[in-house]
């Protein structure tokens, strides 16, 4: 049975050894075939061939692709990286990692609504413009960016710290599935690896290595995004930050980054500009410029049907407005306004945002 195991199985077994970190693993695997290295180390570790087979089965059963640097599917960006992981675990299509333009959207795990809104908007707009969104699938900004990016056009990439066996954090199980379905989730930890603290900054390094540009949406003073930013700067990738209120604790980190020279990100266009500065062009994609400057994918639009609907449609904007404001702006009665809004919503022109209304 052990004879049938691929070389990658031995590499996985080696990566599970508690004494082996990313750097050691890289050195070990550079020396020769993983099976030979494993045979040398097995005297010391006491790992049997059966155990290797079991670990391998575990990965295969969960549909996890294991990429060694020798594999042709191993991503170009990591192969060129001095610290590229020797073994990369993927859930989903590893081809997404080769997407021509990739942008990391990262930030705090405890954002404000402002941060969530901006992250989701950037995720959606960039993805629609043909940019692959890379993020950490953590709570807060990371998740918001992916929520926006999913289904918007380009494959999302999630970079996580732990093994790919179980979604982490738990409550992102659905998002996890969507990202793996539309794009790929990668990790350098095998299934069953202990989630030690060092794996999180290590994940941030991997995230920076996979991205052409890093955008920080909201970050506290000394937040975890600093690791990602430092790793990006080491690799010469441009770093952008979304400006925030000087009174908001969640914008302290990003405002400090701006002061240190990060480029300001006020719309997806800013990021697209920096991408071409970084030498990459987004994938060709049907995009059109709308008057506000945000790039959105073209879509067939319906027309407001009645006079009232036209009146209401004219005062709606992409900023949600309360009914009271719309009443004042249109001078319609409440039933007439509500009816017109519902009809606009039915034809896909307006959207209800918790009692406030905006353009769809």
């Amino acid at each position: 049975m052990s004879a049938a195991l691929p070389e990658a199985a031995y590499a996985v077994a080696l990566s599970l050894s508690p004494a082996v970190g990313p750097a050691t693993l890289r050195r070990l695997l550079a020396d020769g075939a993983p099976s030979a290295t494993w045979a040398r180390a097995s005297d010391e570790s006491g790992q049997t061939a059966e155990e290797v087979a079991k670990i391998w089965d575990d990965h295969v059963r969960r549909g996890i692709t294991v990429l060694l640097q020798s594999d042709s599917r191993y991503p170009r960006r990591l192969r060129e990286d001095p610290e590229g992981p020797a073994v990369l675990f993927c859930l989903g299509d590893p081809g997404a990692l080769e997407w021509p333009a990739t942008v990391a959207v990262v930030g705090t795990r405890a954002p404000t609504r402002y941060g969530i809104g901006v992250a989701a908007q950037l995720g959606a707009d960039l993805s629609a413009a043909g940019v692959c969104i890379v993020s950490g699938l953590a709570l807060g900004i990371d998740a918001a960016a992916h929520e926006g990016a999913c289904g918007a056009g380009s494959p999302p990439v999630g970079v996580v710290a732990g093994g790919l066996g179980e979604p982490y954090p738990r409550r992102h199980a659905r998002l996890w599935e969507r990202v793996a379905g539309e794009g790929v989730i990668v990790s350098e930890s095998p299934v069953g690896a202990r989630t030690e603290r060092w794996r999180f900054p290590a994940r941030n390094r991997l995230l920076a290595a996979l991205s052409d540009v890093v955008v920080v949406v909201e970050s506290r003073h000394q937040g975890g995004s600093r690791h990602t930013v430092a790793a990006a700067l080491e690799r010469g990738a441009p770093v952008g930050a979304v400006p925030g209120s000087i009174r908001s604790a969640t914008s302290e980190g990003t405002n400090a980054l701006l002061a240190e020279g990060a480029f300001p990100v006020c719309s997806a266009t800013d990021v697209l500009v920096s991408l071409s500065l970084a030498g990459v062009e987004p994938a060709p994609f049907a995009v059109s410029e709308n008057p506000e400057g945000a790039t959105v994918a073209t879509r067939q639009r319906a027309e407001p049907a009645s006079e009232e609907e036209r009146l209401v449609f004219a005062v709606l904007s992409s900023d949600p407005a309360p009914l009271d404001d719309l009443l004042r702006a249109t001078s319609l009665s409440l039933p007439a306004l509500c009816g017109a809004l519902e009809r606009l919503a039915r034809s896909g022109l307006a959207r209800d945002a918790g009692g406030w209304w905006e353009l769809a």
Partner: protein
Amino acid sequence: MLASVTSATLSGAVGRTVSVEVHVSNGLPGFTIVGLPDAAVREARDRVRAAVLSSGLQWPLRRVTVNLAPSGVRKAGAGLDLPIAVGLLVAAGALSPACTEGLAFCGELGLNGSLRHVPGMIALADATDAPELVVPLDDVAEAALVRGNTVHGVATLADLVRILRGQAAWPPPPEPKRARRSTTEPDLRDVRGQILGRRALEVAAAGRHHLLMIGPPGSGKTMLAERLVGLLPPLTRPESLTVTRIFSAAGAALPETALFERPPFRAPHHQASIVSLVGGGSWSLRPGEVSLATHGVLFLDELGEFPIAALESLRQPLEEGVIRVNRVGGTVTFPASFLLVAAMNPCPCGEGVYEGACTCSVATRARYRRRISNPLLDRFDLVVPVSRPDPEDLLSRVPGESTEAVAARVAAARSRAAARDADALPVMAPEASDLLSTRLREGALSARGLTKISRVAQTLADLAEEDEISFLHVSEALSLRAGTAAVVA
């Protein structure tokens, strides 16, 4: 000698007949009260003695035993002073037993022999089964609400003794006071702008829909809530009796006419104890704010700041219209059918509705929202976002529509609803039911939500004086509940 006099005591908001037995015998002079008296009843001995002496009567220098039957029921309050004094005078031979036949007595005694007000007189008058009832002059109007002209008011113990001895006649009942329409009730005219908030009030009043307003501080939530009561129709006779009974039992001040004609408005503070909200007390069970708001409006400002246990205790009254209070002293059921109006900020900092202005973290906001459980949120038919009024509206000299005008529409809608067959299915235009089924399919509406939207849409049709629920009514009903998303999201 033995004497027995009929009276009543208060248990919760209900009276119970008490028979006061007084026995005067030879022995060392003394005065004992038995039969589960509370502290106020036990102290009656000193008040009764002083009152009898100051009325120019003799105090029997013998052994006096007072028994309050049934002996298993707790007797509370000073209302038993008068029957004890009368029983004592009969037992001591100062009055003939025949002259108290067919009479019941309730009243507190002052040391000078004057008769004082007793709380809960309506319930007490209800409970006494004697043909005629003697009460302090102050309480005649209240007792007469349920007993008509079989009530006699007396000013002092000395007067009563003269009447019972046949030396004087019962004084004529005091002139009934005329109700004065209070001019201080807040008017909707003072509310500028706030089209959505005003409309929500109108719908809440017309269909008795519970209302939750969500908005930043200073947007006028409290101002709106205070004006809801003015839109409600005056109380019917049975309703006003219920309201008066509860206020009377709680010892609260009654209006001059003794009878409440306007629906009550209660606004307990969020630091109010649960007992003061739902009612209770260890022995003498008193009605709480939820009962005092019966047939009126219960306003909970800063809903998110109320203790979770207090909010959950509202679920029974909201469902059944009554509240059961279980204590060592027994179980009492108080009426508690009110229109619930609540106001809350969208988040702890209050600025949540304004994009970018909120400084709360998502976790803080989530914690704040968790305080309002979904079952409680489900009780609100109307969940309306209230935004700060536009400065132009505030400075405009044009007053808003007056309470009187809106109340007229509410009354018309209510009579329309009352005239409709309650079991008949609502008539809904095809376009309207299409909209509802689309929302159901999208998962934006639950089955319970659907019922609520239909009910509100029916009220809107009533307000518009239309027989069929149209697309516009359903759209508006959806908008008047859309604030739920702001709380649940």
